[in-house]
């Protein structure tokens, strides 16, 4: 990669340059998808590392988010005597907002940084060059499988998160705070709509976030200077850029979908 970019010192133009470069990188990734079908096993392997290994943190955090949400809502709603609606509010807020956003942030922190660091290290130890030497396209072998893995893993992780959050809400609300079990479920099922909340909220949003986080992680890995210092900065940038992108995209998607 003979990039002879002029140095940019302005933060704004630097960020814009990064956004543009990652957009172009996305096109490269997508163009490499047919070629990366050869490396399907790699994609499966990455799905394991990126998805299944994030399960623990996602499940635990989902549980706690549901529990805390129920606690907070109960105390506020009991002012109006509306505690029977707390199950519904937990479900709606998790499906529409907290589920996709928190899952994406956790994913960026755990899997995004791991991917960036791994790719950066591979570049630093010439493994990417070695692949080029062995006539294996590094984008098709390294980048696209990780991107696709992130894309597939995010919605699944988000569903698990939401399920754990509802379970946590139920645990605190029904078992501890004494909301009636039937009321909890009846209010929730009456209001939660499959199309608006689950498909638009959980699935679509998490898919979009997964794409963004994976793109940023892979891009940062491939474009940092291949030194240990460069890799350290790259992982930080992955988290920061992912977080900003997730929340900005969240606003845009909410405006469009809901």
């Amino acid at each position, binding site marked *: 990669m003979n990039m002879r970019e002029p140095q940019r010192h302005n933060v704004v133009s630097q960020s814009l340059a990064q956004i543009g470069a990652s957009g172009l990188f996305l096109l490269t990734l997508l163009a490499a998808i047919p070629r990366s079908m050869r490396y399907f096993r790699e994609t499966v392997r990455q799905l394991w590392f990126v998805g299944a290994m994030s399960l623990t943190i996602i499940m635990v955090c989902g549980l706690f988010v549901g529990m805390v949400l129920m606690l907070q809502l109960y105390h506020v709603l009991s002012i109006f005597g*509306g505690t029977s609606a707390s199950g519904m509010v937990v479900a709606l807020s998790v499906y529409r907002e907290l589920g996709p956003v928190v899952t994406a942030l956790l994913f960026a922190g755990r899997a995004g940084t791991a991917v960036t660091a791994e790719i950066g290290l591979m570049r630093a130890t010439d493994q990417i060059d070695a692949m080029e030497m062995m006539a294996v396209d590094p984008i098709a072998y390294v980048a696209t499988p990780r991107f696709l893995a992130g894309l597939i893993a995010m919605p699944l992780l988000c569903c698990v998160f939401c399920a754990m959050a509802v379970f946590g809400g139920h645990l605190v609300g029904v078992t501890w705070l004494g909301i009636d079990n*039937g009321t909890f*479920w009846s209010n929730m*099922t009456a209001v939660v709509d499959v199309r608006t909340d689950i498909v638009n909220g959980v699935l679509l949003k998490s898919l979009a976030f997964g794409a963004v986080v994976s793109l940023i992680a892979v891009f940062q890995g491939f474009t940092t200077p291949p030194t240990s210092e460069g890799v350290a900065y790259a992982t930080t940038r992955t988290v920061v850029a992912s977080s900003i992108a997730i929340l900005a995209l969240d606003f845009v998607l909410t405006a469009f979908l809901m």
Partner: protein
Amino acid sequence: MSQQRSSYAVGTGLFIVLGFAALAYLATQTSSVANVRQGDSYTVDAQFTNIGQLKERAPVKIAGVRVGQVQSITLQPGHDVADVKLSIDKNYNAIPQDSVATIFTSGLLGDQYVGIEYGSAKQAVAAGGTLARTKSTQPLEEMLGKFFGAGGVVDNVGGSYVVKADFSNVGSLSAGAPVKMAGVVIGNVVSVHADPVKLNAQVVLAIDKRYNAIPDDSAAAVFTSGLIGTQYVAIQPGGSPDVLKDGDEMILTQSAMQLEDLIGKFLVNGSSDKKDAGDGKSDTPAGKH
């Protein structure tokens, strides 16, 4: 190395399965396609004229104890009653056939549930049977209306026809008061005027067009709902083959009972004429021993 590969594949497969299971759980158990499957329960039908805020999966309670839940709420096409299916735990299989299913509200702004009050029939309602006696919710407006005396008046969007009736005394009847037949509201009082010529009260009634088979020799009477309630016009059907049409006048009328007349009847022991009051037996019933 192929063992490692297959363990990745297995682990990844498990992860994907878990994700889809979570999705399925969310979609079916927490959303509006929630499927109610209770272990060991039987279904009983009940029909309500108004279900209020009752939702599916709301509890069904007897004496405050949860015995089941609402399985489905549907509106029968062509009828204006809601058909509610209750799923009741098999343990409670001795619900008398004439029990009353009522929609209660827990708390002032709380959720609604179905309460069953036992009747006295010897036979229990069977699986798939129907609880015939039901009490629907009291919509807020009706309750407020009862407080403010305008309850039960229907906005007759479907159209109504107008008949006149003259009364010698309308009591406290006013415009907007309901017109009832057999206790069911069929219209309302449009206006109450004093006729300067005939020296009585002319009342104009608007009756819902649906009730267009009222015989034209029916009587209109001013009744009071309850002991100290609002007054309304009751129509007591006659036997004429002709029916009331728009603009007709109802000949037979019965005026309102005045409070003073009522008290007078007690005090004066018979007629409302005070002239016969001097019988000496003017002791009030309160003085009875």
